[in-house]
């Protein structure tokens, strides 16, 4: 199997391992922390892990659509950050806290 192109200095598996590690760190952050800001940071971390995968495979398959897709991921991340922070501001204005455990008024 001619797995890796000869001129690709870093094996594509390494990108996948790095991406998996960063994604799990982000997922653990979302699940373990109760601060809304830290949860938003962890979401950004997970999106960046996906971006690493896209860039690594774009290089591996010698195809630039993967890199283009990273640009769209960044646009969606910016939109998510704007809306998430707006929700955080509105919640903080009403409840004076950002601990997500305390937002249980809907009895979910």
């Amino acid at each position, binding site marked *: *199997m*001619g*797995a890796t*192109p000869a001129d690709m*200095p*870093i094996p*594509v598996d*390494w*990108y996948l*391992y*790095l991406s*998996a*590690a*960063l994604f*799990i*760190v*982000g*997922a*653990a952050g979302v*699940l*373990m922390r*109760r*601060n809304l*800001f*830290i949860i*938003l*940071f*962890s979401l*950004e*971390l997970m999106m*960046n892990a996906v*971006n690493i995968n896209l860039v*690594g495979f*774009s290089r*591996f*398959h*010698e*195809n*630039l*659509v993967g*890199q*283009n*897709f990273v*640009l*769209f991921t*960044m*646009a969606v*991340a*910016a*939109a998510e950050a*704007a809306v998430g*922070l*707006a929700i*955080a501001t509105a919640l*903080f204005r009403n409840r*004076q*806290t*950002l601990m997500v*455990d*305390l937002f249980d008024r809907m009895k979910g």
Partner: protein
Amino acid sequence: MVDKILFVIFAVLAVAGGLGTITRKNVVHALLLLVFTFINIAAIFFLTQAYFLAVVQILVYAGAIMVLFVFVVMLLNLRTFKQEEQTHRGQRWVALVLSLLVLAEFVVVLAGISFTSARGGFTPEAIATAGGSTKVFADALFNQMLLPFEVASVVLLVAMVGAIILVKREKSAGGTTRTWEPGDQPSPEAVEEEV
């Protein structure tokens, strides 16, 4: 060989920054560690010869989005974040164990898989002869991905309008009227009361 060593260094720093982000009590410290992680990811993009994306990563992610976060963190009152109130204490350990399990699963799957390059033709030499990575990137973006590009602009517009609507204060909801006019200097107590 040098590339591999640099990749490992930046990867370890990125993961360490990520771990710092999710363990800090102080939100501002966590934010700065997140910016550190993003800059290391930009370095990895450089090593992958995605030069345009590396610059965009620093300008847009570590620059614009993180400044937005800093702005809101500073805007809200940080004193209330001192203690992390945890009503579901057991959930933390369950989440940790499950995360480690999924990581182990990823590693097992990745260790047993081997990829074959599709050979799309955009080797570094081909990109260099075609006029550089940014030009080739833009060619692909504005030919194959033109419709998604336009949709992305609509997504940003919707997010902008949504953020404004969410933060806008409704006139009737609070019921508190201003005790000061916008023109003159308000007393700190009046501002505190309104905010």
